[in-house]
């Protein structure tokens, strides 16, 4: 498994955790039909902020851990060379395409939910949910492309 694949796997797990946390907080509100604006704003803020922070921290931590593991394995320290070549860039672009495609469908479905009588809070909750789902699908498609083309 290459450095990029490991990085994407970490990103996938962090997105899955964020998704589970979001659903665990959102579903009880929907089931009890209590979409309280204040609580939802707080939830959206936490999820979006954590998503950004986790993306950065996960990337840095993966770099550090992989450098340590590589140094232990080869028993000498070498400057890590985490190069990104043309194939990595291509797979990255395809992953982003999957992310945007999923997110676009999600936004469309959320707007339809609003048109068919759901409250605006539900529409935005769905958009946030689809943004997390889009990130997960983007990561999965990148891992799939790495497996298929490597």
């Amino acid at each position, binding site marked *: 498994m*290459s*450095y*990029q694949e490991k990085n994407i796997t970490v990103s996938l797990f962090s997105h899955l955790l964020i998704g589970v946390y979001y659903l665990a907080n959102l579903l009880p509100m929907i089931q009890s039909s209590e979409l309280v604006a204040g609580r939802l704003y707080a939830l959206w803020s936490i999820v979006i902020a954590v998503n950004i922070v986790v993306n950065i921290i996960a990337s840095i931590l993966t770099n550090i851990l992989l450098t340590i593991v590589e140094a232990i394995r080869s028993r000498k320290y070498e400057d890590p060379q985490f*190069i990104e*070549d*043309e*194939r*990595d860039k*291509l797979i990255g672009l395809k992953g982003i395409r999957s992310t945007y495609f999923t997110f676009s469908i999600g936004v469309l479905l959320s707007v339809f939910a609003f048109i068919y009588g759901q409250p605006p809070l539900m529409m935005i909750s769905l958009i946030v949910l689809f943004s997390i789902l889009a990130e997960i699908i983007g990561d999965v498609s990148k891992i799939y*492309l*790495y497996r*298929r*083309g*490597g």
Partner: protein
Amino acid sequence: MFQRYTCIEEGVEMGKSQVKNNIRKLRFNHDEMTQEQLAKKVGVTRQTIIAMESEKYAPSLELAFRIARIFGVPLEEVFYYTPEDE
């Protein structure tokens, strides 16, 4: 009436590519150069060399030229194209 066009995206094919290559043979003939050594020389990851050798990935024209230059042979000695119907 309608001409059939085949579209080949550069550096895109991820299934079995129609662009074949002799990289493995050329590596062997060049002092059994490892995939890692070739990857470092042309500035890509070892995984990309593996993908090219197993014909799952067709490189960009620039990378193809860099590989041919490392082996000191013309491009067509490293890469060749086999149309689907052949």
